[in-house]
């Protein structure tokens, strides 16, 4: 499958690796970012340097108007989106008893509301084309739960329920909707946890190490490929055997 792939939160971490992977697989890639334009431009430059096609588009994906504007720009410049990767996400950890309403809302908005807004916007043209792939980045936190991450885990479990429901709604139109649930992956998000926490985490992982963003991106690349045409509504855990 080729066409246009939109990756939200693609300036760094897993999103960046997904953007690079899909570009190398032949997709024209939209590198969405919230605030880090320099990093997003670097991703675009890297894709173009390798002979691929990419543009960077700023949008807060939790904001309805911003999402509408982004889809207008993208459709005008590259055409309809064939693959949507809902990757943008944040953490704002804390034990529930100390978690503010603001912490809760911010994480749910960026991680879950964004998935609703972007998927709704992308499905219009996918239904018309009777083809398309939606790939949502969840987390093992959403599968197993994680102390200190009630907001994040709820948002990521929400993504899984959204994935299954949407897969049932649009399956008859040849569109697949799947989720990928990474475990501990080396990114800015996990670097913020410190060596002690990541070291203790690694001890719980069957493969004995953190994963790389590229190891998640390869699964996303597969779900976007022709080879994955009969997989829908699934959550593929990519965690090195953490949640066993």
């Amino acid at each position, binding site marked *: 499958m080729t066409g246009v792939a939109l990756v939200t939160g693609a300036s760094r971490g897993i999103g960046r690796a997904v953007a690079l992977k899909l570009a190398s697989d032949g997709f024209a890639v939209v590198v969405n970012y919230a605030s880090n334009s320099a990093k997003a431009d670097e991703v675009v430059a890297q894709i173009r340097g390798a002979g691929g096609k990419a543009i960077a588009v700023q949008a807060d994906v939790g904001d309805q108007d911003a999402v509408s504007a982004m889809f207008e720009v993208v459709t005008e410049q590259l055409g309809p989106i064939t693959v949507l990767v809902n990757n943008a996400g944040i953490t704002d950890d804390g034990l529930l008893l100390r978690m503010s309403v603001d912490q809760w809302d911010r994480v749910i908005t960026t991680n879950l509301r964004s998935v609703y807004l972007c998927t709704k916007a992308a499905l219009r043209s996918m239904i*018309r084309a009777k083809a398309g792939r939606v790939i949502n980045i969840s987390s093992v936190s959403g599968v197993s739960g994680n102390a200190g991450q009630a907001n994040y885990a709820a948002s990521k479990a929400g993504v899984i329920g959204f994935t299954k429901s949407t897969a049932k709604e649009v399956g*008859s*139109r040849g569109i697949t909707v799947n989720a990928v649930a990474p475990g501990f992956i080396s990114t800015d998000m996990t670097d913020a946890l410190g060596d002690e926490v990541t070291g203790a985490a690694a001890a719980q992982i069957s493969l004995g190490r953190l994963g790389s963003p590229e190891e998640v991106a390869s699964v996303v690349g597969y779900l976007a490929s022709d080879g994955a045409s009969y997989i829908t509504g699934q959550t593929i855990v990519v965690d090195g055997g953490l949640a066993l």
Partner: protein
Amino acid sequence: MERTDIEAKMKELLVEELGLDADKITMSATFEEDLEVDSLGVVELLMALEDNFGVQIPDEEAESLITVGEAVDLVEQKLKG
């Protein structure tokens, strides 16, 4: 826009957007039984009607649509404002 124009456009959208057989489309044909349009198909038609006629059709009004003729009625009514 004349009613006959709306009817013609409606048929065209049903054929082009929903892939229906033009011969089966009559004003009394029901979406669900005669034309075998599923719930997502009705949503597709509504989006196409909104795009092509420049009207807004709220979900609660769309829910009562049973026949092609009723969809034409609704568009006609919306166009008159």
